[in-house]
C-alpha cells in the first residue's frame, strides 16, 4: 500500500519531468504542456488542492472570499474557476504565488482580469518576473514575513531563504496546521533554478527553517498533493544525503557528467528521482566546485 502510493507519486512527478525534459526546461516554464483534466483533493472543508497540469493550487474558502495559492498555466484558468465555483460561491479575492515559474503564475494575469483578485508574492520573485518580462506581476510583495486575513481566517507568508529559487514562499495555514510549500518541495525533485537565484547548498537549511512551523499537513508544489510533515523531513534528509555524496565526488575530482551514475539514491522515497533532479546535479556540482 505504502509502496504503491510512493510509486504513483513518482509516476506523476516523472511524467511532469518527462514533459519538462522533452520540451526543454525554459520553454516548459514559459509554454504550456498538453491539457490534462484537473482533480480536487480535500485537506479540510475549507481547504482544497487542485491537482494536475502545473503546480498544485491551494484553495482556502472564507465567508468573505476565496484565496488561491498558485494558478498553473493561463490555459488552466477556466477550469480552475469552475473547480473553485464548485467549492464556494464567493469571489476570489487574492492569488498568492509560491514563486515565479510559469507553471505556478501562468494564470495570474487572466485571473486578476476576470476576478479583480489581488496578486501577492515575494519581492525577489516579482523582480525576476519583471526581468524575464513575464505577465501577471504581483500587486503586493513582501520581504520576510506577511499575513493575509480574510473572513476571520489567516494565511501566513514566510520567506526562509534560497532554495528552488531565491523567492520561494511557504504559505502557512495555522488553523489547519498545514502549509503549501511550492517547489521547495517537489516530490522526486528538487529542481534548483540557479538562473532565478536558486541555491542547492542553502536548500536543506531553508527547509529546516520551515519545518519549525507547527505543521502536520504538507502540500508540495508538485506531487502529493496531501503529504505529512514527516515526508518533508524525509525529503530534506535525502537531499542532504545526496548533496553530501555530490560534495565528496567533487572533492574526488569527478567531472560534472560523471556524477549521476555514481549517486546512490535508489532507496530514497521523496527526493532525487526525476528528470528535474537530474538537472539539479550539475547545478550542485558547480556549487561544490566553487
Amino acid at each position, binding site marked *: 500500500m505504502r509502496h504503491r502510493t510512493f510509486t504513483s507519486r513518482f509516476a506523476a512527478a516523472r511524467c511532469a519531468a518527462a514533459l519538462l525534459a522533452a520540451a526543454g526546461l525554459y520553454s516548459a516554464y514559459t509554454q504550456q504542456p498538453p491539457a490534462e483534466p484537473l482533480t480536487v483533493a480535500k485537506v479540510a472543508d475549507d481547504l482544497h488542492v487542485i491537482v494536475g497540469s502545473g503546480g498544485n493550487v491551494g484553495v482556502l474558502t472564507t465567508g468573505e472570499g476565496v484565496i488561491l495559492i498558485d494558478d498553473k498555466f493561463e490555459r488552466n484558468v477556466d477550469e480552475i474557476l469552475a473547480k473553485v465555483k464548485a467549492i464556494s460561491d464567493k469571489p476570489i479575492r487574492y492569488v498568492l504565488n509560491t514563486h515565479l515559474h510559469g507553471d505556478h503564475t501562468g494564470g495570474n494575469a487572466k485571473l486578476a482580469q476576470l476576478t479583480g483578485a*489581488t496578486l*501577492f508574492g515575494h*519581492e525577489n520573485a*516579482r523582480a525576476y518576473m519583471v526581468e524575464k518580462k513575464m505577465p501577471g*506581476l*504581483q*500587486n*503586493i*510583495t*513582501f*520581504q*520576510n*514575513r*506577511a*499575513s*493575509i*486575513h*480574510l473572513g476571520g481566517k489567516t494565511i501566513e507568508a514566510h520567506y526562509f531563504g534560497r532554495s528552488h529559487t531565491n523567492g520561494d514562499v511557504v504559505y502557512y495555514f495555522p488553523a489547519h496546521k498545514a502549509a503549501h510549500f511550492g517547489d521547495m518541495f517537489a516530490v522526486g525533485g528538487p529542481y534548483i533554478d540557479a538562473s532565478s537565484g536558486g541555491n542547492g547548498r542553502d536548500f536543506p537549511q531553508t527547509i529546516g527553517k520551515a519545518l519549525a512551523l507547527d505543521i502536520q499537513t504538507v502540500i508540495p508544489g508538485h506531487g502529493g498533493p496531501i503529504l505529512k510533515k514527516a515526508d518533508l523531513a524525509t525529503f530534506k534528509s535525502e537531499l542532504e544525503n545526496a548533496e553530501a555524496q555530490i560534495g565528496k565526488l567533487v572533492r574526488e575530482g569527478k567531472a560534472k557528467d560523471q556524477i549521476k551514475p555514481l549517486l546512490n539514491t535508489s532507496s530514497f522515497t521523496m527526493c532525487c528521482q526525476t528528470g528535474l533532479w537530474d538537472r539539479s546535479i550539475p547545478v550542485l556540482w558547480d556549487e561544490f566546485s566553487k
Partner: protein
Amino acid sequence: MRLPRQFALACSLCALASAWLTAQAPAPPKPLEVVRLSANLHVLIDPEDNGNVAVYVTPEGVVLIDAKFERHVPQMLEAVARITPLPVRYLLSTHHHDDHTGGNAALRARTGARILGHASAARLMRERTMPGPPEVTFHHRMSLHLGGRAIEAYHFGPAHTAGDAVYLLRDENTAHVGDLVELVGPYIDHKAGGSGAHFASAVEQLFTLNAATWIPGHGKPLTPETGKLYLADLKTAVARAQAMRAQGVKKEDAMAQWNNEGLRYCCRTNIWKRSLAGLWDEPAP
C-alpha cells in the same frame, strides 16, 4: 496620536479636545483642506487635525494612506472624486489609532479597497475589536504595485506604537511617516508597545528613504531638514527624561518637573509629557 479620554479636556491643544467632543456628539465635520503636493498626490487635512490622509492617484486606481474617523469618510470620498474619477483600490494604515483608522471599515464597505498595514497594528485592532483591521500585513518590508507605481512599506521598530508603518511613494519622492514625526508631540503609546528608547532610531531610519517631503500624521508636510531638527530635540528630550529617572525623580512627578528648555521642534506639549510615565517603566537604558 490618540489620547486617553481623561486627558482630552486638560490637553493644551484645543483641537484635541474638540475632536473628543465631536466624537461624543457627532456633528457634520468641517470641510477638508486639500493640499496639493503634485498632480498625483494630495493630502487631506481636517480642521481638527485628525490623521492626515494621502491621496495617491495611479493610472489603475487610487491608494489612500490613513482614513481619519468614520464620520470623515463621505467628505474624503468627495475630495477624491474631485481629484480623479478612478476608484479607491487600496487603503494603507500607518498605525492602529482610531484617528487614522476610524474610517477603515466604512471605506472598505463603500469602495471594496484592500487594507494594508503592519502586523502589530492589525493585532492591536483585532484585540481591541476596532473595525477595519488590515487584511494584508507585513513585518519589515512590503511593496504595493499599482498602475506602474510602487509604494514601499517599512517598519522601523517600535516607536509611537509597536505597529508603525512608513510609506514611501518612490515616484513622488515623498513619504507618509505617520506619527513618527509629530512636532506637537510625539506621543509614545506604551500600552500599544511604543518605545521611547527606540523612537529616535526609528526616526533616524526615515532619512534612509531619501524622500524630499515627509507627510506627518498631523500638521503640514515638512522637509527632512525640519526632520533633523525634530530628531535632535527628540534625542535631547529622551536623554533628559532618562537622566531625570536616573537621578531618582519619581514617575508621578515627571510631568510636573519636565523642563522644556532648548526644545523647539518636539517634546514641549502635554502630548509628550503624558508619555513620560511610560518612559519610567521602560527597561533602564
